């Protein structure tokens, strides 16, 4: 438990403290409530007992009436009394059923308590037996049985008084009324019962009148004062306990007075020398009547008083409960407020301290300074954060480069202040060195403060490196200057190139647009192509059938040509024969010519003798010449014919060959046409595909145009940036010249 509490937060601990105080108050409240409930229980029990006593009173009075009526032999009165008793028994049963268990008045409980003779199953049969048998019984037996029943009822009244704690009634007003209900009035009834029976026996027994008078006097002198005192006391005490009952003083005294008056009348009626029996009986009746009226009123008043008591206790219980509850709520609210007063500033402080410790954040709100411990803690925290802030400002100034800050240690124990002061001093030295270096004096001597002085070492190294670097930079600046000049030239070239690129891009853009337009036209053309392809397919189908017919015709041609060729062969043979004959004729003619010439030559040589012969020779030669000419003509004709025939044959052969080739070609054309038909049939989907491709191409060209427009912009930007870079290069050139000039200001150790 202790460990558990130690681990809890502060408000939990405070809550547990409050609970520790609330617990005994709770116990106290419980016991108080228990007491109130006990009082209420008593009142309720008393009221239950009163409810049972009512039918018992009626029963007692009824029995007396019954006995009296039997004595007087009045059948109507007997019937009425029996009905009264039966009603009372029924009412008793009802009350017993309702309140029996609380009052230990059930049959089983009566047995347990040794009061078995009071059980209803014993008492009721006794009455039933009396009711049905009284005519056969002797008067003494009837009287005894009534007496027995009467005493049983008296015992019941006493027992209910005990078990209902009526007898222990704590309030005086109700106590006196209770005394009337279960003490004085039952005793009066007992005596008056006997008085009534005595009055009824008056005629038979001479002492009856004196007994009646004695009993009446006893009642008047002994019981009536008790009743009066009880009524007086009750009225007097009423109001001191649980409030005043208006009906108490109004109901009880007149009825008690009536009872006294009736008893006085009975005494006076019975006290004469010869008391009239009927008058006594009548007076006794009236007394009985007054008694039961008073009894009923007393029971009613007791109920009222008990109700008042219950109401009073209930009100008290409510007050106690609500007051305790209100007090608890108030104290809890107060406790919560106090807890908040403690935990809230503490929580703020904790959050601020955590933020400062973990995130270095000093800006979180801190509670106001106050006289209590938390207020003091807040004040100390304020001071601490103020110190932190001033240190942070100093550090900030240092961070901004301001080394002329004012910082002093608060005490010798202020490690942070001391260190910060030393830091400021050291940084000031470094700053001075840096100022000299800034002025271009690199001949400064740097001494590190310790082996761990990283900055000192670094500064030392830096001075050395800067010296080296400055030398190198001077050389590099010269090189850079010339390089910048080169770069400027290159940049100008690049600019020119970019302009060309821009022009080219524009051309490409125009071309791309043309491509786009051409693609669109191609698309249209492709659709026409598709239509033409379909027409071609149908035409090709027609052409194929035509070709089949043509092939058949050509085959017929070839056959016919073979016949012609054969005829021509015969003709050629005949021509050759003619040629032979003509050759022979030619030779003969030639020889004849030769012969005639020789003859002419010989005739010439013969002179005058040869003259006639010369003439003959000349004639022969002329014949020979004609023959030669004719044969030559024939030969020429035959030759022409032969060559014509040969040419014809050749032509025929060529023709036949051409036809054969034509047939083959036709077949080929036919198959090709089939192929064309197939191809053309497959052309349409391809044209569709090409169409899609064309559309894609058109879209692509469009995209290219757009992309080129982007490229053109980019090129334009490149050109702009090149112009800018030209300007930059120019500035760079100026800068390098400036660099060279400013580097002259550095003074180096070696130099």
């Amino acid at each position, binding site marked *: 438990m202790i460990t558990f509490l130690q681990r809890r937060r502060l408000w939990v601990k405070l809550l547990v403290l409050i609970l520790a105080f609330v617990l005994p108050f709770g116990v106290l409240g419980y016991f108080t409530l228990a007491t109130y409930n006990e009082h209420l229980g008593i009142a309720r029990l008393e009221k239950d007992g009163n409810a049972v006593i009512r039918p018992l009173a009626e029963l007692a009075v009824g029995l007396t009436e019954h006995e009296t009526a039997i004595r007087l032999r009045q059948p109507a009165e007997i019937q009425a009394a029996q009905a009264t008793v039966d009603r009372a028994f029924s009412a008793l049963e009802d009350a017993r059923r309702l309140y029996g268990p609380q009052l230990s008045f059930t049959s089983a409980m009566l047995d347990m308590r040794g009061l078995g003779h009071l059980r209803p199953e014993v008492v009721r049969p006794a009455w039933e037996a009396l009711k049905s048998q009284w005519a056969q019984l002797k008067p003494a037996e009837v009287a005894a049985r009534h007496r027995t029943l009467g005493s049983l009822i008296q015992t019941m009244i006493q027992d209910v008084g005990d078990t209902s704690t009526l007898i222990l009634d704590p309030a005086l007003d109700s106590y006196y009324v209770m005394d009337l209900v279960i003490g004085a009035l039952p005793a009066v009834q007992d005596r008056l019962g006997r008085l009534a029976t005595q009055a009824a026996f008056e005629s038979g027994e001479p002492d009856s009148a004196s007994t009646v008078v004695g009993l009446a006097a006893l009642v008047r002198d002994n019981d009536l004062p008790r009743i009066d005192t009880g009524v007086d006391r009750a009225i007097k005490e009423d109001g001191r306990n649980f409030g005043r009952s208006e009906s108490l003083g109004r109901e009880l005294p007149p009825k008690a007075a009536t009872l006294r008056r009736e008893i006085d009348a009975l005494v006076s009626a019975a006290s004469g020398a010869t008391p009239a029996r009927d008058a006594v009986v009548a007076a006794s009746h009236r007394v009985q009547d007054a008694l039961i009226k008073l009894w009923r009123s007393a029971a009613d008043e007791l109920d009222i008083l008990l109700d008042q008591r219950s109401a009073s206790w209930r009100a008290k219980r409510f007050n106690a409960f609500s007051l305790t509850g209100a007090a608890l709520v108030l104290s809890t609210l107060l406790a919560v407020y106090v807890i908040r007063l403690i935990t809230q500033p503490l929580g703020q402080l904790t959050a601020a301290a955590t933020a400062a410790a973990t995130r270095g954040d000093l800006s979180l709100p801190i509670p106001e300074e106050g006289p209590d411990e938390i207020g003091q803690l807040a004040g100390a925290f304020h001071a601490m954060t103020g110190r932190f802030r001033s240190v942070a400002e100093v550090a900030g100034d240092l961070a901004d480069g301001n080394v002329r800050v004012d910082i002093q240690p608060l005490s010798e124990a202020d490690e942070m202040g001391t260190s910060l002061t030393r830091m400021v001093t050291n940084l000031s030295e470094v700053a001075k060195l840096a100022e000299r270096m800034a002025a271009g004096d690199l001949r400064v001597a740097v001494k590190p403060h310790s082996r761990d002085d990283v900055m000192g070492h670094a500064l030392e190294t830096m001075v050395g490196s800067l010296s080296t670097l400055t030398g190198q930079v001077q050389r590099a600046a010269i090189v850079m200057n010339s390089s910048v000049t080169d770069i400027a030239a290159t940049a100008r070239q690049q600019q020119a190139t970019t302009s060309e690129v821009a022009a080219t891009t524009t051309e490409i853009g125009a071309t791309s647009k043309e491509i786009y337009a051409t693609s669109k036209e191609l698309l249209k053309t492709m659709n026409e192509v598709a239509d033409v392809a379909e027409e071609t397919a149908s035409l090709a189908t027609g052409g194929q059938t035509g070709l089949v017919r043509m092939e058949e015709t050509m085959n017929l041609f070839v056959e016919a040509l073979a016949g012609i060729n054969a005829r021509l062969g015969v003709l050629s043979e005949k021509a050759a024969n003619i040629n032979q004959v003509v050759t022979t004729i030619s030779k003969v003619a030639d020889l004849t010519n*030769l012969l005639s*010439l*020789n003859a*002419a*030559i010989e005739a010439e040589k013969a002179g005058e003798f040869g003259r006639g012969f010369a003439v003959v020779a000349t004639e022969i030669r002329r014949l020979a010449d004609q023959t030669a000419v004719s044969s030559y003509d024939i030969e020429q004709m035959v030759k022409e014919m032969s060559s014509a025939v040969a040419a014809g044959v050749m032509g025929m052969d060529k023709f036949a060959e051409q036809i054969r080739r034509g047939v083959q070609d036709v077949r080929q054309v036919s198959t090709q046409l089939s192929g064309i038909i197939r191809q053309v049939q497959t052309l349409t989907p391809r044209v569709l595909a090409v169409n899609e491709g064309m559309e894609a191409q058109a879209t692509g060209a469009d995209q290219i145009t757009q992309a080129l427009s982007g490229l053109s912009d980019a090129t334009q930007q490149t050109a702009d940036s090149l112009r800018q870079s030209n300007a930059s290069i120019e500035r760079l050139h100026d800068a390098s010249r400036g660099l060279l000039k400013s580097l002259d200001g550095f003074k180096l150790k070696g130099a």
Partner: protein
Amino acid sequence: MLFVLFQTGPERYAVEAARVEELLPRPATLRPLAKAPPEIAGLTDHRGAILPVVDLCQILLGRPAAPHAATRMLVVKCGEVRLGLVVERACETLRREPGEFQATGVSLPDAPYLGPMTRDGRGLVQWVEPERLLPPAVRQALSVRLAEEVAA
């Protein structure tokens, strides 16, 4: 006088019929002579005697005679020597008197065979003497002498 007409190519010539011994078809075969000038076509048998044959087309035109049926061989006598002259179209005779020939007026030392010209219905005809047609080398090889050489 009767002349026998012949041609070498288109040019027409006339030779005295008295000088022609015989007109024969061109021999089917000639026996060629080794190392002889191309004008001498070869040797043939003529009625039991050896006859040298000269191609006039070769001499006058520089080409052999065409192989026509009218291409014939004239057998002429040059002094003691008989010669076969192959000519083209030797198919006609012409009767003319010597006075009917006219001098050409042209005298060529390299062509001494060219004599006077006459005309007939088909054009000009030149009178030639066969031995003068032959070049000197052929003449010498065939032992043919001209008339003036014989006189000398």
